């Protein structure tokens, strides 16, 4: 059963043909041609591998690296570049489908179908700049990095708790906290 799922997901380039030269170039940064993003793994983070992939797609969506219609890296290419279990990649892509962010097209691959990035790039840049100003102020006030993270995290939690009190939806809050931290 698992085999069928794999081959249909990998699809396209796979089948019975010999491996294409794309993914296996002998280096640790092999990548399929034409994919918009490339995954990396942090072994020391303690975050399960499939969740790291999910977070990186969400992150790329927020920052506009990925847009609706973009194809996520093919399973075989992710496997070839990171040397991880194919089922881990499938699990991450299924999770993205469950979240409504991606959809799998049999024989073609997995494509972005919704975006998290509701903020345009100039506004993002402005927000980034104002955050830097705030960080400078925090630094001048004597906060070290851990202190800044702790303060920011607690403020963020307060903010979303207030909001979820009025809106009853806290789902987005946890996701955002992880990305910022």
């Amino acid at each position, binding site marked *: 059963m*698992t*085999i069928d799922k*794999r081959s249909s997901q990998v699809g396209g380039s796979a089948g019975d043909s010999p*491996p294409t030269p794309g993914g296996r*170039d002998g280096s640790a940064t092999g990548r399929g041609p034409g994919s918009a993003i490339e995954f990396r793994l942090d072994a020391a983070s303690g975050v399960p591998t499939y969740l790291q992939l999910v977070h990186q797609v969400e992150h790329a969506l927020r920052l506009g690296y990925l847009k609706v219609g973009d194809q996520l890296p093919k399973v075989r290419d992710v496997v070839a570049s990171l040397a*991880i279990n194919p089922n881990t990649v499938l699990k991450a892509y299924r999770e993205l489908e469950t979240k409504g962010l991606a959809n799998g097209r049999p024989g073609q691959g997995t494509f972005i179908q919704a975006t998290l990035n509701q903020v345009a790039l100039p506004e993002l840049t402005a927000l980034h700049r104002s955050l830097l100003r705030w960080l400078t102020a925090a630094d001048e006030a004597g906060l070290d990095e851990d202190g800044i993270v702790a303060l920011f995290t607690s403020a963020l939690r307060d903010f979303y708790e207030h909001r979820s009190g009025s809106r009853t939806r806290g789902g987005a809050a946890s996701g955002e906290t992880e990305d910022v931290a």
Partner: protein
Amino acid sequence: MNVVEASGLGKRYGGTWALRECSLAIPAGHVVALVGPNGAGKSTLLNLAVGLAAPSAGAVTVLDGRPPGSPDALDGIAFVAQDTPLYKNLSAADMLHLTRNLNRRFDQASAEARLGELGIPLKQKAGKMSGGQQAQLALTLALARRPRLLVLDEPMAMLDPLARHDFMAAVLTAAAEDGVSVLLSSHVLAELERVADYLVLMSRGRVQVAGEVDDLLASHRILTGPAAEASKCADRPVVYVRRAEVQAHLLVRATADDPIPPGWEAHPVGLEELALAYLREPGAAALPGPARGRDAEPSEVTK
């Protein structure tokens, strides 16, 4: 379909049982890590499964009930033994030629293409290649046979970190692309943590744990609490206890939904921590339903 199925399987060398009462059923479509300390019986189990050794007790079948060593089984299984055996005086081209003539099915074109991608010249003698190249050549020969099950005994023991990564990437790409089931042994679990989605843990000639990694992690928790109350958790099967004067850590079989005794904290467990706990407690066993062989005992924590 099960790629390997054993019931009551045992192997004795002289007076010593290298493998005893082994009952398990490994489903297809997985990358299976066979993990255990040196001398746990990993190689013995692999040799029995590929037909290089005959059982002293019990039975083993492969690829849905085929006897190991039968023509069908031989066609469907590729085995790379511990020291990536190659004829050191033969060139890569000669190794391909030899393997093609010794097998009923051999995909010469894909093998040559693979070696080309890897930058291994066909004229190069196996003995002159780096350890990583030798391992890749052995893997190429194995994959060119288009197996349904790829069996690798300690494939990475001799490789440097980069060669390990490239080797595993090649194995996993075969799994992703052609749906090859993979069974590989190691005494280092850490290097298989990202690679395997099915774990078979062996110690002292017995199978201790077998199951899908996600299921195993979901069915175990670490409980931390006051040492004096450690018996409070005894309604859950306890695998392993680490107890100090005041505080105790218990690895228990419990899911995230199970109630926690008051005053205790529950944490998810990592694969390595779980494996170490079982290896330190050879009496404990976790052989969940689908992975259990037909004749295994009914209780989950036994002996």
